[in-house]
């Protein structure tokens, strides 16, 4: 495991808050400023989403953020520039999340080398399941990057064992069937899945998808999650900036601080 990731998960006392931004939404400079805001609020890990034209795993909030970023000129070269800029300001782990074609188009080994050179610690590829994972995991390990894999409620026990044998960094637990996006309630199946995965692996287990409120964080903390991934709930605030919605609501930093308190780490 990358030393930064393993180090972060070793400092326990409640789940880590993994905060997501979409690279280049609404601009390269704003992404840096938003990262600073998240770091200042106590984000434990930042996941930088490289947008793709056809994001089938994402709901409307992240789709629209991706469209804004691509329209503003975001591309893979700039992604690594952005990671490098953020790395200059912080020692917390940085993840890159994207889709297979972004990696394949650059060349799989080159993508992971560039990610490592820029200072990323892990890479998550939304549409690479176990069946397609080998070239991605191999390139990741060669570059010293953790290949982060998914388990879902529809993953069979036999399949889960094979995924856990290949995964690095932490296990990304898909906490809701369907796409990314805010949800009102946690599914009891996700809590049950979390307990089952924890029994099978020594890797940290981190749920994502639909985690929107401090209350959700508290429930996952109680169930033993090692971290929680907060995407749409934060990314939505960027889209809302400059609208009346943003005036009344809390800021990104407020949400991160509230979630840290719920995680017992405030």
């Amino acid at each position, binding site marked *: 495991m990358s030393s930064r990731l393993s180090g972060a998960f070793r400092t326990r006392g409640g789940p880590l808050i993994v905060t997501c931004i979409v690279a280049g939404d609404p601009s390269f400079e704003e992404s840096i400023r938003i990262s600073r805001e998240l770091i200042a609020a106590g984000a434990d890990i930042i996941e930088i989403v490289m947008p793709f034209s056809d994001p*089938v795993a994402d709901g409307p909030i992240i789709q629209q953020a991706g469209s804004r970023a691509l329209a503003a000129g975001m591309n893979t070269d700039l992604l690594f520039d952005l990671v490098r800029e953020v790395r200059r300001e912080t020692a917390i782990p940085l993840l890159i999340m994207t889709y297979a074609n972004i990696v394949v188009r650059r060349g799989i080994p080159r993508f992971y080398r560039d990610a490592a050179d820029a200072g990323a610690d892990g890479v998550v590829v939304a*549409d690479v*399941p176990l069946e397609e994972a080998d070239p991605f995991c191999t390139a990741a390990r060669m570059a010293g990057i953790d290949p982060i894999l998914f*388990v879902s409620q*529809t993953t069979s026990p036999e399949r889960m064992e094979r995924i856990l044998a290949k995964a690095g960094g932490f296990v990304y637990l*898909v906490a809701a069937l369907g796409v990314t996006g805010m949800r009102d309630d946690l599914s009891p199946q996700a809590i049950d899945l979390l307990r089952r995965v924890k029994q099978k692996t020594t890797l940290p287990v981190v749920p994502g998808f639909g985690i929107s409120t401090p209350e959700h964080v508290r429930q996952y903390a109680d169930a033993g999650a090692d971290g929680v991934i907060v995407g749409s709930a934060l990314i939505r605030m960027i889209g809302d900036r400059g609208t009346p919605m943003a005036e009344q609501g809390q800021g990104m930093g407020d949400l991160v601080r509230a979630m840290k308190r719920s995680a017992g780490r405030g």
Partner: protein
Amino acid sequence: MSRFGEYGGQFVPESLMYALDELDAAYRTIVPSEEFREEMGYYLSEYAGRPTPLTFCRNMSADLGCKVYLKREDLLHSGAHKLNNALGQALLTQFMGKRRIIAETGAGQHGVASAIAGAALGLSVEVYMGEEDMQRQALNVARMEMLGATVIPVHSGSRTLKDAINEALRDWVANVQDTHYLIGSVVGPHPFPSLVRDFQTVIGQEIREQVMAKEGRLPDVMVACVGGGSNAIGMFSPFLDDPVELFGAEAGGEGLAGRHGATLCGGTPGVLHGSYTYLIQDAFGQVLESHSISAGLDYPGVGPEHSFLCDEKRVTYQAVTDTEAVDSFLYLSRTEGIIPALESAHAVALARRIARDREKEDILIINLSGRGDKDVAQVAALIKEGP
């Protein structure tokens, strides 16, 4: 086998693997079973109207200087080859014990075919269709609704077929347990490209019997249009090991230097909709909007088996522009009294190009994958506008 050479695969979110594994098992066990084949035979012959004729075209043959035949998928119930696959997958859905079908559609032909199959087999049908395509193909939207299907407009991305597939995949991830995604072409993750090919292979199998009965030998050349490529694969599959020249007509749009949908002629390999295959994309892997006058060919990807056949040089793919397609739409209408779908008009245009170098006795077969009623208003408006 989930790959054609290096192409194909299963690039989908982990949550979907459950559904793909289940479908793969059904593809391997249910589809070959006698019970399934009997039911399928009933629907194809009694209901859909198979076999479709292989028509010898006297006027075109005289004009082009070789023996020209049309495989008449335009005469299939629903007016296009899409029904072969829709009936197959709808029946498979029933055998798998699922009750809900989702589908994507571009031109609306696959949506209509899915709505028909759903009505015939008692399954609920929801069809994702790009907003722009709904305007271009309003007649088919009305047909789907009359058949009891729900049409869901897609507002994301380019609001065409590509985005309708994205939306259908998102629905499927959320509802994997009770829903089957009835994909309309030989695209998507394994096993779809093989499953859809197998349901469309009836086209090529019939051609083989029909041409042997009429001519006593195999054809020299066959031509089909390629968007995702299901009518082409269905036609080509039974002839891949024979000395038959195979040609695929891609959507050249405004020409390869401008906006087009000719993925194999003008694209590069990458991953879209679960498959590694040729794509129209930029240097960073962002998939670009395709363009074609025909909604059914307006797709920036292509079935992975076509990518393989293209690299192997077993099939020759050429681009046909919008202008050439409209010209051949009118040519076939006036020469033979058959109005082709704009998609199929691309195949007619390529056949006319190829026929130039042929001998009088050469046999050329065109897959007339659909009829043109849906395109009449669009072409009429173009003619009125003038060149």
